[in-house]
């Protein structure tokens, strides 16, 4: 039995935990405002909000319900467009109308739900964040400009939002219906505990699984790791950081530890998927999915991260770079799960950068991605970890290039020579994300981009030509 609150009422269902939230709200509950555009997380027409109490405060995140296992909303508050409707239009809805943010309307509820998440966020509202909230919503009709204008007005209308009493303020200003202030109480009344089966498919956010094998999951119970307590903890001990493999991309983004260790974190993470996907996608899932172009895999490879593999009470720790044996072939038994990820925090003289280019800059899988962590002492390279994705059957840790760079002077010549080694370490193939030639050229450029970005005084494109 899965229990949660759907809009203003508690619901109970004996649907399997691997069935989809989308099908439940649309076809079981006849909440038709949630639309279906793709069933692969790429359009946002099915966006709903999921709320939970974090430190006593209601926290809402938007997700694509087409990739949300029903089991992951156990004990939470699910909000569809119907749960946002009031007697008159909310300011979000009204501005969308006023600015003609809707044409055929099929995408519109998704936008309204996402923008409402922006209003609900416990942070100072900014236009940038308003746009970020709808970065997973695709509209084929409007060309987005009217939606941008609506977002601008919405942001302005939140100027006086009371950060401490967000809910009350939003209710008073008629952004959300008044039932929202009973939600904490209703959530507390729900039974906790998870309903995962121990023999079902192991699932994190499901953002890879449902895209790959939807029909094998939706009538099954699944083993949900997100219901494991502490699975998304992020901790520092000495000079090392450990995070639970169930941490989502959003957890990283919102973690103080990460944003202080990686000054460009926001920029990097913006290149990965979209807000709703990042709200669900786990780091462990990204690793275990073993896609050669996993962005977090590239990111953590360059941190020379270690992963802890757990099978019941047995643990072993290996380097992430040793996890990948061949295409989708992992050094992992079926019973093992990735439980934690750890890495040494960057030091004063180390520099980190992540680069990614895809067909569309945002909300797209990389043609090629790469990350680097490089330490410099008196213009000498004292340590490098370099990764690259999309240029081989597995996410690559470029050992030989790293070895070559070690001890060299930081200079354009060094980097150009390193590129030759790098080119010999990769073996891209032509596919829908680009030709082999392109991927080679692109990786060279992104490799150069690391240095141009990290050491702008020493490197320019001209110096590397």
């Amino acid at each position, binding site marked *: 039995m899965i229990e949660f609150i759907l809009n203003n009422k508690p619901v109970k269902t004996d649907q399997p935990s691997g069935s989809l939230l989308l099908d439940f709200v649309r076809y079981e509950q006849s909440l038709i405002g949630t*639309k*279906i555009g793709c069933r*692969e997380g790429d359009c946002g027409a099915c966006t709903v909000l999921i709320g939970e109490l974090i430190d006593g405060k209601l926290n809402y995140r938007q997700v694509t319900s087409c990739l949300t296992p029903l089991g992951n909303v156990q004990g939470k508050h699910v909000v569809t467009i119907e749960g946002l409707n009031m007697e008159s239009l909310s300011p979000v809805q009204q501005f969308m109308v006023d600015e003609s943010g809707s044409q055929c309307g099929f995408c519109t509820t998704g936008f309204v739900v996402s923008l409402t998440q922006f209003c609900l966020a416990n942070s100072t509202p900014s236009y940038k964040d308003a746009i970020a909230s709808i970065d997973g919503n695709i509209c084929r009709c409007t*060309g987005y400009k009217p939606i941008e204008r609506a977002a601008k007005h919405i942001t302005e209308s939140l100027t006086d939002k009371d950060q401490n009493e967000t809910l009350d303020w939003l209710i008073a200003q008629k952004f959300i219906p008044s039932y929202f202030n009973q939600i904490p109480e209703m959530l507390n009344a729900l039974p906790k505990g998870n309903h995962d089966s121990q023999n079902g498919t192991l699932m994190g956010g499901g953002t890879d699984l449902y895209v790959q094998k939807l*029909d094998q999951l939706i009538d099954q119970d699944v083993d949900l790791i997100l219901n494991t307590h502490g699975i998304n903890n992020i901790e520092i001990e000495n000079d090392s950081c450990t995070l639970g493999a169930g941490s989502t991309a959003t957890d990283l983004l919102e973690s103080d530890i990460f944003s202080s260790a990686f000054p460009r974190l926001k920029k990097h993470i913006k290149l990965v998927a979209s807000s709703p996907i990042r709200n669900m996608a786990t780091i462990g899932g990204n690793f275990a999915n073993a896609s050669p172009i996993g962005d977090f895999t590239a990111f953590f490879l360059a941190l020379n991260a270690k992963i802890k593999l757990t099978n019941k009470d047995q643990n072993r720790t290996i380097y992430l770079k040793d996890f990948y044996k061949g295409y989708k072939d992992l050094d992992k038994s079926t019973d093992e799960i990735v439980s934690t990820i750890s890495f040494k925090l960057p030091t004063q003289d180390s520099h980190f950068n992540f680069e990614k280019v895809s*067909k569309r800059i945002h909300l797209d899988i990389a043609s090629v991605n790469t990350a680097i962590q490089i330490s410099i002492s008196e213009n000498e390279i004292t340590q490098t970890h370099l990764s690259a994705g999309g240029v081989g059957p597995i996410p690559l840790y470029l050992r030989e290039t790293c070895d070559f760079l070690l001890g060299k002077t930081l200079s354009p010549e060094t980097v150009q020579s390193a590129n030759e080694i790098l080119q010999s370490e990769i073996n891209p193939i032509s596919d829908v994300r680009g030709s082999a030639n392109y991927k080679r050229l692109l990786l060279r450029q992104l490799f150069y981009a690391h240095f*141009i970005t990290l050491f702008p005084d020493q490197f320019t494109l001209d110096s590397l030509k």
Partner: protein
Amino acid sequence: MKNIDSKGHVTGKSIYLDDIPLIQGTQFGVVFDSPIAHGTITSVDYSKALAIPGVIKIITHEDIPGENQIGGIIPDEQLFSSTEVHFVGQPIALIIAESDQIAFEARKCIEIKISKKNIIVDPREAQQKDLLIIPPRTFELGDTENSWENCAHIFEGQADSNGQEHLYIETQGAYAIPMENGHIRISSSTQGPTAVQRITARVLGVGMHKIEVDVVRIGGGFGGKEDQATPWAVMAALGVSILNLPVKVVLSRLDDMRMTGKRHPYSSDYKIGFSKDLKVMAYETTFYQNAGAAADLSPAVMARTLFHGTNSYFIPNVKMTAYSCKTNLPPNTAFRGFGGPQGMFVIESALSHAAKELGISKHKLQKNNLLINGDEFPYGQIADGVELNSIWQEMESKFDIGSIEKEMDEFNSSHTDVKKGFSLMPVTFGISFTKTPMNQARALVHIYTDGSVGVSTGAVEMGQGVNTKMLQIAAHVFLIDPKRVKLESTNTTRVANTSPSAASSTADLNGKALQKACNTLLERLKTCAADHLGVSSKDITLKNGMVYTNENPTDLTWEQLVMMAFLKRICLTENGHYATPKINFDMKKEKGHPFAYHVYGLALTQVTLDCIRGTYDFDAVKIVHDFGKTMNPSVDFGQVEGGLIQGMGWMTMEDLRYNNDGQLMSNTLSTYKIPDIYSVPKTVTIEPLETNGNDMAILKSKAVGEPPLMYGIGAYFAIDQAIKSFNPNFNSTFDAPFTHEKVLMALYGSLVSE
């Protein structure tokens, strides 16, 4: 007035096909399609699929009571393949089950054997093998052959543009339900309800009167639901006729992308000649249209390529030939612009090519050759009401093209890692269906006895705001509160024999028909009021729901007048019919006056190129557009913004890929990318051109659906220009879209020799 649907949209209360409450007993259909692009079916074994509990029936060509034929222009496409398959995704059967999940499961168990035949995906190869949908067509003006020797400069080249997936967010679908006496009611997500009705009747072997098609609205169409919404509706209806149970067929996104046709890819050759003073003297081009495996709308699309092959320029000597080439891809179909964009891309490529070789700014070449009143189009129509020069002037005065160019040059000479580029893209687009008989429409208006009004037209609401415009027209004629008017669903029993909602002309045709119906009713009511008030009906006016005589208010309200008319047994219902006057076209001579009028506009696109990564950002698009006298700025501006971005997507990131086996590689939303909110230009400015409007347009408000898409072509040439300032050796290949891959290759050439 805002789109009348927007309140329903933002609250999720608007009803789309998949939202229609299901009738008990509804069954679900999933299409079984060919996995092979060309071949002969040697055997199909359905037994395992049929054995799955919940599978009700598998319908094949053998179950068709009428004709197994869905071709519109040419009868060359079967509903279900009987023996030959011609493209991957070609329907072979419909699996009907208690749920789509069961039907999908069953589909996996069907065993099919196909003996493969030679697969062709390249239109030029098809043309060489004489695989043509229709004989080639040629538009000619003057005499190109004898012009070349008088040209000071001649340039030749090739220009290709790829296809485009419509990506309406609502996939294709239909829901058919049995009515009494063998009648079937179909709800369909279609732009062409009559097409659905006609083809269903044909396949079922019944009269059209037995088939009712109803459309409330569709979740985006863009041409993709003009003809290609039909098969699914026919299949659902076929299911109903066999099972006597309601049947719903909604395509999954994967099925939709695989089975349906797209915008036509084109490969073209051009030759362009200039006089010493850089007037285009001669232009020859050959278009190879990749039609896919059946005609669908390809012949009509091809015609529009020819109509718009010279875009906004006057060229005295023109010869354009087009081949509609039959390949083993899904039949390509209508897509906003309908072949026009593909034709314009070629002439713009030719001009870019020339400008580079001549060492002058392309925009100077463009401006030097703009069409003016009295010029003859290659299809014989004499240009009239041309706004191109005033639009260009407006652009210069508002945005100062010269200083934009200067700033860009300065920026480029002081930056090495980033380069800027810009382009101008004029658009001249003819309004009317190029097939003259299609330019007709009807509207049915009821005034109810309480004074409220119901309007039915043949127009399908797909986000373009046509229902809003219809409502405005009724309220405008009757001068009553728009709240008293309701737009009914589009239904073949209320308005019959309709043209599809397409060719930008839906509002014009249906609006004019509606205007006529409303005016007739108004006259009747005025006569009734005049009788009652003892004045001449000429002196009667209606305003704000009141009757006026000689501009003086009377006590008579709209409601009282309507009731009075009813009691006097005056007809309060009217059917208006409109057929566009003056237009004609002689296909033998390829000359005539096919368009009611033209829409003009100009876009200036500015781009910044990241030369390290080969990516780009659009800084701004500035548009001067000829709306005529817009009857609804918020709807019309929305069409410009939306069309622009769709066109930019086609020219930049939308990378449709088939492999040589005719299999769609970009077959999901994760591999086929359309613009997201971060990829649109930072600013889009739209300046409406002040004009008097055109009487052929409804309320002088010009058609606006398609023309703005072609502004997006400017994106290609802006990138092209920016690349040239980084890599002066770059020889433009004119091969749209300009993906990140192509940009990086153009910036650096290849790392490894191929």
